[in-house]
């Protein structure tokens, strides 16, 4: 699975995700990537999220929507909400994976509860950075 989140200079957010699914998966099995609110989400007033990992767990938790709801209804900072959903909630149901989450103030987190996640980011006027583990 691959994905991107972006904040443009006009202050708008967007998210996109794309996947080949899972090696050896049954025909017809769909994971979280195309499910809005699970693996992909964007709302200018809260956050943009793209997820990767154990699709069934991300669907059950509606991970991206959960982060949005914690911000919107619980007044949690995005970084705190995103980390809690991945490190606490996802682990609690035996799920694993990670996500990238971006807020309209430019706050960015890329939490994962597994060995690593191919990821990268770049800020206006800054140098790009890439990480794996």
């Amino acid at each position, binding site marked *: 699975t691959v994905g991107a989140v972006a*904040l443009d200079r006009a202050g708008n957010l967007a998210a996109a995700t794309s996947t080949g699914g899972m090696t050896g998966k049954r025909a017809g099995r769909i994971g979280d990537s195309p499910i809005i609110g699970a693996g992909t989400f964007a709302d200018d007033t809260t956050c943009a999220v793209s997820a990767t990992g154990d699709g069934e767990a991300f669907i059950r938790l509606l991970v991206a929507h959960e982060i949005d709801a914690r911000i919107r209804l619980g007044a949690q900072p995005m970084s705190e909400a995103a980390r809690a959903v991945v490190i606490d909630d996802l682990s609690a149901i035996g799920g694993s*994976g990670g996500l990238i989450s971006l807020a309209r103030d430019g706050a960015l987190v890329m939490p994962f509860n597994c060995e690593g996640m191919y990821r990268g980011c770049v800020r206006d006027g800054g140098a790009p950075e890439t990480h794996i583990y």
Partner: protein
Amino acid sequence: SGFVLAIHGGAGVLPRDDMSPEREAAYHAALGRVLAAGQSVLTADGAALDAVTAAVMALEDEPLFNAGRGAVFTRDGRHEMDAAIMDGRGRRAGAVAGIAGVRNPVLLARAVMERTDHVLMAGTGALQIARAAGLAFEDDAYFYTQERWDSLQETLRMEADGTLDDDPSRRHG
């Protein structure tokens, strides 16, 4: 103020012990190319929607990652891809599931968002939208990578002889 772009190439990373320096350098180089694709849109005052489209297309074109050209195989030895895109302005969204043959599934998700009243389309109906939108199709050989084929064979063999472990990363694709 200013733009921000973040990308991911999936959580199914190679275990650190299996990652050679050459391989690691190849992943970092691919991620750098993808960031450049999205950054060029934002540097030109482009929209976040166009930046994530460009970045995910670049990820789909990199055989190293599980999407588009590097997609993993189903147990039948075929491809079934999914994609989604969402615009933070007004919660516009498009998504596709269970498709094959379209070079960039994220472009099809965007076509669903921009050319229909729907959010999620699957299978042959989604492919009709791809054709109407004039999206590029590729043959099976374009989506074939030896590594993904070998992964499928190994998975099926271990399933058959009962040695398939429950390593969570297997569920990461």
